[in-house]
């Protein structure tokens, strides 16, 4: 009895472990292969990041970023070397053209995913970096092209970072750190640095968002005070350096005496000036489809006994919007 049991159990186990495609050994091997590739791609990203900042990367900086012991980092460096992705100059590490191409692909995949997750999947902003990081490794260049086309060739990710195009070329034009901006000069937030995460969380917690128009009203060694005309925002100087701003573009100047749609009183007419910069992707397309285009007259017509949503009359139809949506439409009361 026991013998029969063992005789059947042992081959079964052998099959489970060594089966060619779905055996545990193959699966474990695949998993380790994937894990190594992910680490390598993270290493390449670190290198290109350093190069863009004009600093050099070293095994130590790499170990710090990846959070790995030195021995493992050396393994990864050896592997990248053997694939001709990097070269040493003393202790400094540099990307070869081949390595740079790969690194730019990973950067592109990451930022396209962020754009997708923010605009189409509507994931909360503080969640998209981690999710994009998880997904960036499984995208082939052809799939990245498809994603790029589906998103309408965006040039910046939701934090304002430039997205490289198919050939690895970065769009030009960045912002100035808030710490280098003059007091009282109106500025538009063009980039929120999402690393380190702690600083990014503080920026979001303060209530700042991409596309917002602000002024610095006070600088002190321990804090920056900003204003958008209504609310005031407090930032530590170290965090303020992670907020990048640019001068107001022409189209934004029109927004100066506009209010969010939600602030119109019952039956008060307004003319749509613009849709908010933060409103992208799915939401923006929906608004445009419904005819919420600049220059259109709109007014709240139907109250709700629970306050939200309200019914707005636009182009002869009645459309209900929640407060959050109505706040993304800027109108000029008439």
């Amino acid at each position, binding site marked *: 009895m026991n013998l029969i049991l063992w005789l059947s159990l042992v081959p079964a186990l052998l099959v489970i472990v060594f089966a060619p495609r779905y055996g545990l050994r193959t699966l474990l091997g695949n998993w380790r292969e994937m894990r190594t590739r992910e680490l390598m791609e993270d290493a390449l990203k670190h290198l290109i990041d350093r190069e863009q900042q004009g600093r050099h990367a070293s095994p130590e900086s790499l170990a710090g970023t990846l959070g790995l012991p030195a021995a493992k980092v050396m393994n990864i460096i050896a592997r990248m070397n053997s694939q001709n992705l990097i070269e040493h100059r003393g202790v400094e590490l540099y990307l070869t053209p081949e390595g740079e191409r790969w690194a730019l692909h990973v950067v592109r995949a990451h930022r396209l995913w962020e754009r997708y997750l923010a605009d189409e*999947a*509507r*994931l*909360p902003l503080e*969640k998209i970096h981690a999710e994009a990081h998880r997904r960036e490794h499984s995208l082939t260049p052809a799939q990245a092209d498809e994603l790029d086309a589906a998103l*309408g*060739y965006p*040039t910046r990710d939701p934090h304002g970072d430039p997205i490289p*195009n*198919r050939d690895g070329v970065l*769009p030009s034009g960045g912002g100035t750190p808030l710490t280098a901006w003059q007091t009282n000069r109106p500025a538009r937030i063009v980039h929120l640095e999402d690393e380190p995460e702690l600083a990014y969380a503080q920026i979001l917690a303060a209530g700042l968002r991409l596309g917002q128009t602000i002024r610095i009203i006070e600088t002190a060694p321990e804090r920056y005070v900003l204003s958008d005309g209504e609310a005031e925002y407090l930032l530590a100087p170290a965090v303020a350096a992670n907020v990048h701003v640019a001068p107001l573009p022409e*189209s934004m100047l029109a927004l100066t005496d506009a209010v969010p749609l939600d602030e119109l009183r019952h039956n008060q007419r307004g003319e749509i000036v*613009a*849709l908010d*910069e933060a409103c992208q992707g*799915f*939401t*923006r397309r*929906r*608004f*445009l*489809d*419904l*005819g919420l*285009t*600049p*220059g*259109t007259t709109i007014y709240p*017509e*139907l*109250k*709700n*006994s*629970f*306050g*939200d*949503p309200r*019914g707005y009359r636009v*182009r002869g*139809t*009645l*459309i*209900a*919007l*929640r407060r*959050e*949506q109505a706040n993304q439409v800027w109108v000029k009361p008439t």
Partner: protein
Amino acid sequence: MPPNPTNPPDATEILAKADQLRGTLGTGFRDEIVKSLYNEAETIARRAVHAEGDHKYDFDQRIDRIVTSPIFGLPIMLLMLAVIIWITVIGANAPSNLIASGLFWVEAQAANLFESWGIPWWITGFLWHGVYRGLAWVIAVMLPPMAIFFPMFTFLEDLGYLPRVAFNLDFLFKKSGAHGKQALTMAMGFGCNAAGVVATRVIDSPRERLIAILTNNFVPCNGRFPTLIMLGTVFVAAAFPPAFASIAAAGSVVGVVVIGVIFTLVVSWALSKTILKGEASAFTLELPPYRRPNFIRILYTSLIDRTLFVLFRAVQTAAPAGAVIWILANINLGNVSLAQHIADFLNPFGLLLGLDGVILLAYIIAIPANEIVVPTMLMVYLGTGMMTDLPGLNDLKTLLVDMHGWTMLTAINLMLFALLHNPCATTIITIYKETNSKKWAALGALLPLGIGFVVTFTTASIARLFGWV
């Protein structure tokens, strides 16, 4: 200048040029495109359409002010829903009996004919008392309620009233991270959960649509109302003095519906905090002008698109289920049918949930349609070889309480389990077809079932702890 045919520009050259020009477009060019389209449309419309006065607006506004008012809004809505469900339940009785007696007459005649030809009893039984009876039962009990409910529902839809319901109730769904239009798909679910799942197509963002699909089963459909009403009348009403009996029965059914709505909201909230995390996407709800309903369109949409669509899917699963039910009831091991063996095996688990083995068995084999759960249950209790109709209410009570040990706890937990269990096979298939994913279909089936187990186990434990049973 015409293009030079001898030297067409290279495709890659054009693409490169396009790539280069794209950078100079700026961010607002899509807005500009839509704006120019709208301007063009406006110009055309101004030439062709002349508006005189605003009478239509005023009339619509007056109705809107009433149906969305803080005092009348919710009561009007609840009243309409109650009336529709009441008409459906009452009105479906007679046609159901008529269809049933017609179809079962055919069964009896066919069985007699087979017998006279000398065909073995088990072929006759399998074909006519199994497969055919399963089909006939599902058609008889499903068709009339749906043919009554869906036209009334479609009437309100065509009238333009339903979007106002979504408008009124959105505040509840907003708090659960869901879409206000889920109120409509829920209302549709009272007619049929499979139709409710299809109706979620009106929700245009995928996340909120999935929430609506996964929680649709928490509103009891037509097929479950008769079970609820039967239990409410036989058990709950009997615990009250005769003067309050009918109110108690109605109250218990309404109570179950309210529990279902609460579960819908709580589970929607939980889903939007866990596996379907995300922000509420664009909530835009069009409130169309009221219009005179088009009766031909109503009949077409409700009967062809909804009733027949659902019935056809149900029939596909009912025939095999009829066969399985007949086999389980007619194959004996020892002196006892297979069905009884399985029921005995499930009994300890059933008792743990305050139910019993037969009830669980009935829910397993009657998965194609909730309507055949009670007939299957009675078949096993009575030991007959085919699905059996309700005896009189008093006989029913004797059968269940005196012979099979039902208590108030069994009745209440069965009401809860009728609300909280896996959706019928038709709905599961529909979830699969709508989401195109086995994963979501499985979750849509297991989530309510798991909740049902937890809830019935909890009520059973509490009742036993306090020594009520």
